[in-house]
């Protein structure tokens, strides 16, 4: 199981760490969050269906662990929650709803975005630019960038949701 887990999860660890950094804003907390998520994922790895999208599932696990972190932090402000293990175990067998989005789905959705939203979103996602940098590039206000990104994500979500798997309908009884 360990070898299989390493093979399946290894390629996704850098992406998980980058995401954890965005959520925690501290390298130490991000490393702890990723470590904790991987630990939980390992415990539930054998429950994962063979044809599952591992990356999407790992994101769900990380999300659950982050929300747990937030709950503990809300109860005990100032304490480091990741070293406490009283948080509930995440639902690792929950099927990731975004698992079956294909590249064609993505391309079709992006093509339907209005040009101004698409430009801002691509600068954010692929260009890894901050809102301020995007504002400077596009010659618009920083707040407008935030609004455009929000609208772009909402539109993309609308377009892609029909292609996602409904967790409630696919979960085994």
């Amino acid at each position, binding site marked *: 199981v360990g070898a299989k887990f390493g093979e399946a999860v290894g390629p996704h660890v850098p992406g998980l760490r980058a995401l954890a950094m965005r959520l925690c804003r501290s390298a130490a907390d991000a490393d702890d969050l990723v470590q904790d998520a991987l630990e939980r994922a390992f415990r539930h790895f054998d429950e994962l269906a063979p044809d599952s999208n591992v990356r999407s599932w790992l*994101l769900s696990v990380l999300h659950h662990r982050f929300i747990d972190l937030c709950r503990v932090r809300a109860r005990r402000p100032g304490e480091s929650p990741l070293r406490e293990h009283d948080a509930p175990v995440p639902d690792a067998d929950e099927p990731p709803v*975004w698992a079956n989005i294909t590249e064609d789905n993505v391309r079709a959705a*992006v093509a339907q975005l209005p040009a101004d939203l698409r430009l801002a979103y691509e600068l954010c996602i692929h260009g890894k630019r901050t809102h301020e940098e995007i504002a400077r590039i596009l010659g618009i206000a920083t707040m407008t960038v935030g609004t455009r990104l929000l609208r772009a994500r909402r539109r993309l979500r609308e377009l892609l949701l029909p292609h996602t798997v409904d967790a409630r309908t696919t979960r085994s009884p």
Partner: protein
Amino acid sequence: MIPLCERLHLFFDAELSPEEAEEIRVHLADCVRCQRELHELMQLDDVMGRWAPPPFRLPRASPWSSRRLRHVLATLAARGGAAVAIFVLMAVVGYQNFFGIPHLRDELAAAQSPQPASWHFLSVSRGGPPVIVASQRYRMVGLTLGMPAGPTLPSYRCEVRDAGDRVLWSFAVPAPARGDEIQIVIPAFQLRPGAYSIALAGPESAAAGPQSALALYPFTVELGKD
């Protein structure tokens, strides 16, 4: 102040201050809507970031976008329109080669050849207006105007008006280097039978209408037999 739920995407993009970000983390502990929203943001950005975007093209101002053009061409091709389009194109090219271009060549040669003109003298009118017989043999009508009274000016504004006082031509003419006659040439083919007048005014006049004219030269045009 923007509600916390509305700032979740800013938190996700790491655009909030550390204090504001901590506020969102605490809020996430209880807000199920934001928890779900965060999960979707994570999944969406991951899905979108995994694949290279298709090439980006700014939208064209023209309503004939490439998609629309492709659609029209595809429709034409499907209906045999391509064959019709080629036929029409060949017909246009054939017409140009056999009729249009030779005609243009003749026009150009005629324009480059010396311009025949009939010349007429118009003096400051004291009697009835002189009659100019326009002939198809002449492309231009030359008019010699007697100098208006008063000091000679370096140039004059000249206007040709029809019977309805409509300005047909307005141009500047220099004062004659010698003698006391001003010569002008106007295209004959634009003259119709009827009464006309030419007004001369000073060069600074915006118009050489009857009020500001230094001299008026009425004349009548009749068509010749040829």
